[in-house]
């Protein structure tokens, strides 16, 4: 695949993230932060998120199992996940977190369980998409370090 095709593919992919609501403005903000002193900033941040969020998901799952009636604790954990998701602009995850929190509020254990499952799926999807994206990016990296198709 030649360079320009790659670039087009990257651009398209990124646009789809936005169109399909996987990512929001925050992702752009991250790209704007990227500069010479941190040429791989966005990728690093995303990597950090993808590394840390499974832990949060596990905590949530664990809490539902161990303290099924402790909605306050659950809410707190979901809140953490929500905050984390907001860092990279993971809109769908953020929204699912809001739904999840509503279930906690209603003390709806079944609702919480469902939310958790959806959350895990969203997370897996997002992870796969982002990883593909950065893989592509790395292929064009030697020529450009900052991929900001908005410019």
């Amino acid at each position, binding site marked *: 695949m030649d360079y320009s095709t790659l670039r087009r593919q990257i651009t398209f992919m990124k646009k789809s993230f936005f169109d399909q609501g996987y990512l929001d403005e925050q992702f752009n903000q991250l790209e704007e932060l990227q500069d010479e002193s941190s040429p791989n900033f966005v990728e*690093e*941040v995303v990597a*950090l998120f993808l590394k840390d969020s499974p832990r949060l998901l596990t905590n949530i799952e664990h809490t539902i199992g161990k303290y099924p009636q402790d909605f306050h604790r659950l809410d707190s954990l979901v*809140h*953490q996940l929500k905050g984390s998701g907001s*860092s990279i602009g993971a809109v769908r995850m953020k929204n699912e977190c809001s739904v999840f929190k509503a279930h906690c509020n209603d003390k709806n254990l079944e609702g919480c369980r469902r939310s958790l499952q959806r959350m895990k799926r969203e997370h897996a999807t997002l992870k796969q998409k982002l990883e593909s994206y950065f893989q592509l990016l790395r292929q064009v990296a030697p020529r450009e370090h900052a991929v900001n198709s908005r410019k």
Partner: protein
Amino acid sequence: MADASAFPYGLRVLVVDDDPTWLKILEKMLRKCSYEVTTCGLARVALDILRERRNKFDIVISDVNMPDMDGFKLLEHIGLEMDLPVIMMSIDGETSRVMKGVQHGACDYLLKPVRMKELRNIWQHVYRKKMHEVKEIEDHDSCDDLQMLRYGFEGFDEKGLFMTVDSDTTRKRKDADKDHADQDSDGAAAKKARVVWSVDLHQKFVNAVNQIGFDKVGPKKILDLMNVPGLTRENVASHLQKYRLYLGRLQKQNEERILGAARQDFSNKGPSENLNLRSSFQEQPSNISSGYPHPSQKIQGQNSVLDSQLEDTKRTVPLPVPDKSLNSVGSVAASHNVAGVSPLGGVLSFKGLPVNQDRKPSETMNLGCPAWNGGVPSKQFMQYPKHNHARCDLLGDYACLPKPDLEHPIAPGHLFTPPPLISMSCSMELDARNFSDVKPGLLDCLKSLSPALTCTVDSVSTQLSDSVVTSADADRKFSSVEGLPSTNFDQTSNQGALVRSQEPSIICSADFSSLTEDLPGYPLQSVSFENIGLGGIDLFHYNDAMILSGLQSNWYDDQDQFAGDTIDYPLMDGCLFA
């Protein structure tokens, strides 16, 4: 600061957030604002850092939801102890939460995702605060300055004489209240009218108050009795106000305890002793009025009075007075605690250590008075190391005086040697960890109160405002302070003392810089630093350097608040006077 060219580059920010992703992002954003950033993933570690490097930060940004400590609690602590502006962050923008933040003293509340432009403006809070402080000082310093100057210079020759002649004996031998000659020489540094309330000075104050009788006390009377040259009525007045607040708070705390105990056993001598505190509290429900029981004398008097009341209570229908006092005080105490800052919560939540009666001033004074509201005097008070003995020499040997009676009602846990010492030593045991390693172990958050954590995080942020070691090596932490060799963490306690007494030394030399320069024979220097025993001479030289380099002005800036005489001033924590 009005124009762009005056943008506060290098503003020193501490960011606290348990989310590693956000921490990284915020750090990047703040760096882009040309600020100096230190990051921290745990609230407790953040507090340690702030205590350790008291004056090395201008502002703190913290998330609201953190696993090891509620962000609001951290906010309180910071406000109480360091009085730094704190900005809260959260993904939750619910009005009630924001309100809570403001109530706890946050100077701003940012919603995540935070934008660069919001961070760019945070310097306003720092600036605003400084302006506020400067204004307070200006209100009080104007005429005092001249007086101090006069004293300072006039006593000059006498000082010289005293120094070279047998100054030690001269100083120690008598009650400084009576000895004017002595006093002239110990006037605070002629530079500025910054009264530093050392332990000894405060001791004099308390003695004066005791002597006069707490009810009849007034700044003028105290001032006269203390007879400290250079001390002004205003200084005493503001100190008295704080003292009253402090006592008031002690009482409340006591009441809290007693309310529990007294209800169970009304006839006990123990509670009754405190009951009398309560009833007197009830008599003067307002915050800052005279009439708080004078620590030593009054209480005994009231004790007997209440005892008899209690006796009656036992025998007959409970007297309205004690009951009322119970209830009303209870509610007053409760309401007092509910409103605004709840120092009790802050205090009790801390790893309090029992009061160290033979307190090494350097430890107790320096750290951990978490309930220290507003944090104004805390900086100064807290940094009085053994150096106070030096003052003691000047003012008469008050070091051997019994500590103020304030202690008696105080909850032991309330007075403590600084927790951070403990936490630091705990954390010593940990190896250096990656931030990512620590994160999973958040449940063991106490253990991960590791400077290593901070270190590791710090290694991400490549710059630090001072010579703090940035390696991920657990051995070397922000233990190193400018000019001082960084030591291994194994020597934390020494180091702790070293770090802490370094700052007091700053005060010492700041106060006496003019003296020491001009009075080479002045024993103060040797006395104080020998006591510190940490290569005091080195410290002194270091401090000299600091002063010369103008860092002193920073120091004074932080201290500026003291001279202010606002009602906001916090309650004085027991540890100060322990």
